[in-house]
């Protein structure tokens, strides 16, 4: 499978899950699936945001989280939550890789925290399962 095909597959598989998340969860501004090296693969947005830049930031944060967890003997980082004045940003690793992917969800303070975490995690698991089922996905996913 070529890089372009793999990218299309990730987009095709993940987009319905991102859309469902945006539809079901109150206050979603954006849901982005990015490669671990910072490329936007697919996104669903309610508000205009700089998606390429956010994808790079998601991978950098995930990289820092992994390093922090490793250095403190906590193994791999799974989630990072940025709790800010007007909302939250959640970063979650998609389980079951490769390829390593990260989900970034930006929400306003309309989103209840427990529901946010639960639905983001469900979304990650669903994407991970779909990718696993359609496997033979190469590590390289960007064209």
């Amino acid at each position, binding site marked *: 499978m070529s*890089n372009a095909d793999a990218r299309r597959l990730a987009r095709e598989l993940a987009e319905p899950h991102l859309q469902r998340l945006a539809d079901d969860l109150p206050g979603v501004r954006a849901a982005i699936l990015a*490669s*671990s*090296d*910072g*490329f936007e693969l697919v996104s669903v947005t309610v508000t205009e945001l700089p998606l*390429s*830049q956010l*994808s*790079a*930031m998601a*991978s*950098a*944060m*995930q*990289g*820092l989280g*992994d*390093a922090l967890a490793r*250095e403190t003997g906590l193994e791999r980082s799974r989630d990072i939550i940025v709790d800010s004045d007007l909302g939250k940003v959640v970063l979650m690793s998609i389980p079951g890789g*490769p*390829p*390593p992917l990260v989900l970034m969800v930006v929400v306003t303070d309309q989103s209840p925290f427990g529901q946010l975490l639960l639905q983001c995690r469900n979304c990650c698991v669903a994407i991970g399962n779909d990718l696993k089922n359609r496997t033979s996905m190469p*590590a*390289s*996913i*960007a*064209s």
Partner: protein
Amino acid sequence: MSSEHKILFTGTMGAGKTTSIAALSEIPPVVTEALNSDRLAYDKATTTVALDYGEFTLEEGGKIQLVGTPGQMRFDFMWGVLARGALGIVLLIDNSRPDPLADLRTYVGHFEAFARNGRMVVAVGRTETHMRPAIDDFGDVLANDGILLPVLSADVRRRDDVLMLVNALLSQLEMTL
């Protein structure tokens, strides 16, 4: 020099930032490597997405934090974050890239305050296999912009070469601070 200071290693992807820090650090470096999914742009298995970190003790006893930036422009938001409080910068240029002089201009432009204050050393790598541009050409580009910095050829896989770069930067700083 006393206490703790930070030196930033920056440059394009594949220029040797992670390698430099690993060569000189006295602790196992902290790395933030991710699989490189853009093999067309650069055929390298992994890439730094946030930072590299190592430590080095000077003979006089001061500790130097060695901090590496991600190389790609899409991570340039990290450059400013990591440069905060840095004593100086080692700019690594990969002479095998299509336009190393343009790379020099890009990074010097981004870290202009460091360059204009003499808080930067430029290290040109892969000069054994790629002799052009010559070291003098890099100096000329800087001079045309009114900037005077040490420009050195270095193989950052060698600890002695990285040490030379750090010493060159520290010597440069002694003159400017």
